[in-house]
């Protein structure tokens, strides 16, 4: 069993290699499955998990208070009725996009380096969408009536308005959550079979066995499986681009100055991928250090992700510039005022912070030394996450607080309950994520096997 197991030292792979040299099918299978099956659960798993569990308690208290007292508990009031709830919704759903980009778009583009990061990036997508979904639901005021958004025969004799972007959003986000979950589960099946065959505990074998559904790696199954992966990737690609486009329609279809703009869909999608890759890095950098996965998630992976961040960051920068330019070029006094108010109004510090976090500071990624330095990369990723949250805050709050009529202007102040709900979803996200890395393989084992040089069938011997 352990005849071909070798000790490996983390080495940066050279040339076309993606995985550090010295690995075999057996070593990658054992290394990744041992995190779940045999290794002792480390202290550095328990400490963040306990902190996250505490924050989940904060979230439950915040939600309970909200259900008892109503949404007035948050800082939302006329004219800023969306406040932190929609800011957080857009931020979370954007983070999810990187997972689908990695698992679907990079699969179609045959970027095989994605194979060692797609699993936990997809998990991140699922949990981010779960957190995102909380905000519009809670923002409804009476979340238990959310099903009124779907068309069903009812005694009230009314139906949803299908011409409204808010209804489009319900369908887009719920489709996205469903397809992400399907994609993730289908991707897990062969690895669940590996866990079923590797575990020594009967209970674990039964659970993983039920989840693996009797997968046995037959060639006729693999053939259909590969087709299914490609088809799901092909379906998820337009879907992921459509989701943030539809989210941006929530804004652009309204006539609020600063929202009513055709640049929003591509700008939102780029920003989503930007923040999503930042979150993947925030998760990957500590994970690979904690579990010694530097030979599977190599510095080449980090470098590539940093480049995607840099590229999408430049698109976002271009959009900021063009937003301001079009406001000036339109000659429309309300559009001009909206941008001027962002830059110099009561929320000016937020705007300039956002410019620094999203535009100025990430430019250090042009340097290869930064892209290969985990500490700096981690700092840039946190900075981008902050910047993207501020961007959504500026779009939602600053645009709403002063529109056409000065008599209806107002200032938005978040309350402690806004903070508790937001921090609570952060806790929920990390709580789910730490449960995931404890119970399921965080790197796709069967896809990493195909990256090894041994996986190549040597030509000429078939005949």
């Amino acid at each position, binding site marked *: 069993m352990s005849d*071909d197991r070798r000790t490996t030292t983390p080495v940066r792979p050279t040339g076309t290699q993606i995985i550090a040299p010295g690995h*075999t*099918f*057996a070593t990658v*299978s*054992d290394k990744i499955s041992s995190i779940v099956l045999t290794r002792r659960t480390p202290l550095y798993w328990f400490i963040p998990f306990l902190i996250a569990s505490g924050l989940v308690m904060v979230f439950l208290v915040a939600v309970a208070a909200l259900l008892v007292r109503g949404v007035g508990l948050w800082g939302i009031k006329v004219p800023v009725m969306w406040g932190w709830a929609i800011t957080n919704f857009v931020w979370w759903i954007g983070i999810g996009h990187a997972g689908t980009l990695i698992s679907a778009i990079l699969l179609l583009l045959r970027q095989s380096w994605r194979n060692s990061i797609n699993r936990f990036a997809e998990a991140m997508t699922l949990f981010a969408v779960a957190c995102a979904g909380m905000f519009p639901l809670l923002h409804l005021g009476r979340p238990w009536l959310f099903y009124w958004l779907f*068309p069903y025969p009812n005694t009230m*004799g*009314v*139906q*949803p*308005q*299908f*011409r409204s972007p808010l209804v*489009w959003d319900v*369908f*887009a986000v719920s*489709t996205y959550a*469903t*397809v992400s979950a399907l*994609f993730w*589960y289908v991707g897990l099946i*062969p690895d669940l*079979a*590996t866990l*079923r*065959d*590797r575990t020594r505990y009967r209970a674990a074998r039964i659970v993983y066995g039920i989840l693996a*559904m*009797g997968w*046995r*790696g*037959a*060639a*006729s*199954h*693999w*053939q*259909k*499986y*590969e*087709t*299914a992966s490609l*088809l*799901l990737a092909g*379906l998820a690609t*337009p*879907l992921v681009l*459509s989701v943030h486009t*539809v989210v941006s*329609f929530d804004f652009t279809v309204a006539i609020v100055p600063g929202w009513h703009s055709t640049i929003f869909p591509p700008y939102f999608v780029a920003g989503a991928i930007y923040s999503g890759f930042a979150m993947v890095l925030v998760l990957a950098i500590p994970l690979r250090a904690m579990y010694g996965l530097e030979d599977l998630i190599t510095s080449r992976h980090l470098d590539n992700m940093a480049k995607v961040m840099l590229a999408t960051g430049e698109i976002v920068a271009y959009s900021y510039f063009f937003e301001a330019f079009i406001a000036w070029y339109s000659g429309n006094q309300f559009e001009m005022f909206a941008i001027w108010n962002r830059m110099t109004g009561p929320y000016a510090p937020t705007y300039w912070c956002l410019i620094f976090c999203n535009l100025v500071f990430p430019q250090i990624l042009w340097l290869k030394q930064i892209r290969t330095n985990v500490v700096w990369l981690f700092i840039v990723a946190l900075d981008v996450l902050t910047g993207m949250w501020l961007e959504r805050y500026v779009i939602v709050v600053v645009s709403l607080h002063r529109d056409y009529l000065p008599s209806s202007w107002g200032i938005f102040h978040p309350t402690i309950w806004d903070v508790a709900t937001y921090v609570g979803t952060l806790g929920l996200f990390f709580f789910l994520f730490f449960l995931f890395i404890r119970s399921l393989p965080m790197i796709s084992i*069967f*896809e990493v*096997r*195909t990256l090894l040089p*041994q*996986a190549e*069938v040597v030509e000429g*011997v*078939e005949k």
Partner: protein
Amino acid sequence: MKTPIYGLMAEFESPTALVAAAHQVRARGYRKVEAYSPFAIEEVNEALGLHHNKLPLIVLCGGILGGLTGYLMQYYVAVIDFPLNIGGRPLHSWPSFIIITFELTILFAALSTVLGLFGLCGLPMPYHPVFNVSRFAFASRDRFFICIEANDPLFDRHDTAEFLHTLAPREVTEVAH
């Protein structure tokens, strides 16, 4: 008389050996053959003559059904069941129906991909004879197996086993039912 078996299974150590063996098994005339590997190997499909795949057709049908469902649902609600006269604008406002039509196309197509995959592979399958081979647990780790099933017309318990031994496997095992 011995108890009937499901088939004979040979174990190999590399994908290259598996593909070579699959070619020879096929050339020998065996048709009820299945290969097992820890990851997909395209060359094996070629060697075993696996070309037919109904999945794309199922997905296409699912997608079309989803698109129709999405559009007709919105048409029914907006025009027939709950018409709202908003400044005399047309009830059948098709541009605003596109998004949900698209989303439901994707949703139905994705669901039919997954259900179609399970259906075509016969999953979930709580029991399968190949799991009776104790070393088959390595099929999900680092070993490659080929199994000639007993219902193949050319199958002979003794001759087939001897033939499999000529392919230089690590081991040949009988698979109990």
